[in-house]
């Protein structure tokens, strides 16, 4: 039986269909989760997709964190369930305090879409175990508020404990220490500003380098004790 990966739809989620497609291409079974429904329907892992939940009118992710489904996800994450937040999902995970730091307005103040080179670092998470440390991957970024910021101590600690998941090669937004993604202390919650779901098919993306995030979680679920 293939792994069941939940993909949450908030009002204003945009890349939910893309994340579900990426799960399917990787060989998993996507399960669509609805923001107002706290039931996680027995999924093995959850993806919070990109978009503009609630229009991002207050602060990115600030309202979505209060959705009924988020209470269940926060509980499950604290219990060890793998959770990947992409772009707006990363913002929501920071707002929900599952990940440290915050994502602020790009330093140049513009929304920017580009095919971005990244260097993978923490490859021991459930979403990155199919990569090798130091591997360079090409994955699109597209955001107006993706500048990762945290206080110096937090940044030092992230580096010291190997919790930086990926760094930009050629910083697109002014993120501190070129951080593109981080993980929590337990390593089961990953936030990533770039969009791996847009790099799973050469027909529609610049590479297939993003597929590893989705095959990693399937491998992780398959290997996890029942």
């Amino acid at each position, binding site marked *: 039986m293939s792994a069941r990966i939940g993909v949450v739809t908030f*009002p*204003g989620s*945009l*890349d939910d*269909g*893309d994340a579900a*497609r990426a799960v399917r291409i990787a060989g998993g079974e996507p399960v669509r989760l609805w923001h107002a429904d706290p039931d996680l329907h027995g999924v093995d892992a959850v993806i919070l997709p*990109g*978009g*503009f939940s*609630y*229009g*991002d*009118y207050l602060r990115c992710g600030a309202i979505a964190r209060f959705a009924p489904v988020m209470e269940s996800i926060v509980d499950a994450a604290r219990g060890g369930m793998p959770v990947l937040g992409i772009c707006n999902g990363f913002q929501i995970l920071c707002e929900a305090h599952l990940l440290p730091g915050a994502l602020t307005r790009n*330093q*140049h103040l*513009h*929304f*920017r*879409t*580009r095919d971005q080179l990244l260097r993978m670092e923490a490859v021991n998470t459930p979403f990155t175990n199919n990569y090798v440390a130091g591997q360079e991957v090409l994955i*699109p970024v*597209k955001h*107006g508020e993706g*500048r990762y910021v945290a206080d110096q101590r937090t940044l030092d600690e992230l580096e010291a404990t190997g919790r930086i998941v990926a760094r930009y090669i*050629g*910083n697109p937004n*002014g*993120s*501190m220490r*070129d951080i593109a993604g981080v993980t929590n202390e337990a390593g089961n919650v990953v936030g990533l500003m770039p*969009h791996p*779901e*847009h790099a799973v098919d050469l*027909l*529609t*993306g610049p590479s297939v380098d993003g597929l590893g995030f989705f095959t990693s979680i399937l491998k992780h679920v398959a290997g996890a004790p029942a």
Partner: protein
Amino acid sequence: MTTHPETAAPGAARSASAAAPAGAGNDRARTATGGGPTVFVDTVERAAATPDEFQPYTELGLRDDEYERIRQILGRRPTQSELAMYSIMWSEHCSYKSSKVHLRQFAEKAPRSDRLLAGIGANAGVVRVSDRLAVTFKVESHNHPSFVEPYQGAATGVGGIVRDILAMGARPVAVMDPLRFGAADHPDTARVLPGVVAGIGGYGNCLGLPNIGGEVVFDPCYQGNPLVNALCVGVLPIDRLQNKAAAGPGNVVVLLGAKTGRDGIGGVSVLASAAFDESSAQHRPSVQVGDPFTEKLLIEACLELYDAGLVVGIQDLGGAGLTCALSETAAAAGTGMRIWLERVPLREPSMEPHEILASESQERMLLIVAPEHLDAVLAVAEKWGVPATAIGEVTPPGPDGQSGRLVITWHGHTVVDVPPGSLADDGPVYARPMREPADRILLQADRAETLPRPSTPEELRETVLRMIASPNLCDKTWVTEQYDRYVLGNTVLAQPEDAGMIRIDEESGLGVAVSVDGNGRYARLDPYQGARLALAEAYRNVAVTGAEPIAVTNCLNFGSPEDPGVMWQFAEAVRGLADGCAELGIPVTGGNVSFYNQTGAVAIHPTPIVGVLGVIDDVRRRIPMGFPAPTHPEGDLIFLLGETRTELSGSEWAWVTHGHLGGEPPRVDLARERALAQVMIAAARDGLVSAAHDLSDGGLAQALVESCLRRNVGARIELPEEFRAESMPFVYLFSESAGRAIAVVPRGREEAFTALCAQHEVPVTWIGVTDGASRALEITSQFTISLDELRAAFTATLPKLFGGVAEAA
């Protein structure tokens, strides 16, 4: 009505006030509105009783004879609300009163197409692309609002066209934006362009629609009047096609979406129907404000309603707001309508009836719903968090085949009682005077072919670098990287490719390609040929990707129709486009006219923007524009399709290097364009071509540079014999002859490819090879420029003009 409107979503409907009806003899009806101050309401009764009351119809843009006609239709003077409604619906923007007599040609000359499911007159044209699926697309202008308030003007332009597409039953799947600005280095362009681009991105990105193409063109003629056109493409199962007719007396009229506020009151009539002057700043409150989040929810709610079969009719609210939606839906069905206006949810409780009717608040749709489905409709709206309110009901047509009446009450007072068709269909129609501009003969005599040309290799090299760095030819990444092109995961081609391409069926790989093009300079020199050139370019751009062109949309941007010279340009452009579509065998499915694009007495260049839609059976066979890494050590073969003539008038070169505009634009041969398209479609199907790029502005030089830089692959080009002497290398590189494209053919397939060209009688010339190692563009015995040097020149211009983008912290 059988289901009471108060069953609307909790908190959404304002309770209908039981205001006392206007008593007889009570000549100044008054009512309290939401606890606000008591306001004066001009009722139908009062209008009948006070025939001689002064009405400010001139200020609202109506002529004496138009006002008289309204009085004839109604048999009395209009009420304040009715006057507002007629002034809007009979404005140029809504009634097409100056353009109608010309636009008829699109239908009259249209080639027969069994693909056409909905055409001109619908919110957007719909064409069948498979047994199961149809595609709808349309381009519209939002020029005037975008000059007054660039961000919101451009943002709501996207929102408006998306709702047009949604109203046809389609899911919007992509947007494109053809843009025109004043001189790139003019200080006001630095205000307008960044705002417009951020507005398009801000709205489209938040809506989750990939932006897959468009144009950015600079010319001083657009200084006081930029053009912001917006195109949207949508996809629907054929059986989900919607229409706007308010059929079925007893059906409920539901307003879905945002609350109604004072924004955009008189927007179209005030802004789009009069030229700009110094008072433009005062128009700022007339610009609407966009809320893309609400629009996203509106899209999802509407699609769920369609799929559940809950909607009888639907119309978007755009320019002219409720006035337009109510009158058009009723007129389309021949029915009447009864509206309780106080039930419209308001942002500002003090709004008066004529303001509610004229408001252009965004993100609203009007639904016609069977009474037994009302609860289900409201439940879907609530699921998506979109307010929905029953505001009225459909009433029967009149006796003896007459239409019904549109009756609108406000707290019990009848403020509107009109035949809906008189608003929607029976507006004035003018055959405006036309006269060929007197300066045209002089303009055409002043040919660019006589200008001094570069003739040495060194001069030619410098010209290449100067041209690719010029604002119209340079890299547009500064603009396009502010748009999301990836969302929805079906973007197969996006800018800077010749056409945007979207996969619409993941199983079969079925896809559509769209390109929008226009060249104001060509149209200034000859509007008839200019329109045909725009059509030819968009058609060619679609064809070089391997897609088969099947339908046309257009946005006709012109100066004041009251100027006989402008009217002549308009008539010529429409004639050219209609003739061109007939020759190419593809129908115009819809479009938009934008007049009054001028500052004072000076009109913009006539700018017909043409969009062409193509279909491709399997997007995996699409042809990209960039030279691919060569498959052979000696490089792949580069061919030039079409004929190069000495055609420099109206060219980018004449403009950039001599500031010159004169002569006659390049010749158009649409039979040749059609043959070229046949070659490209067959070549894509048979896998003969690995890259192709259309030649247009900037000629062969521009196409070669773009093709090299796209994937960082060099090329060596050999000039044909007849283009080697004196300034002929220059002509070969910079002439803008139409009907041309370059194609890359892997070795071993060249015989099949040239045979294909011969079969379709398309001239084909081998001009060189791609080069994976040189990292340079070499024109044999002329010059060599490294790709790095080309890239540096090509990419520096816009960041320098509009602000570099900061890198790492």
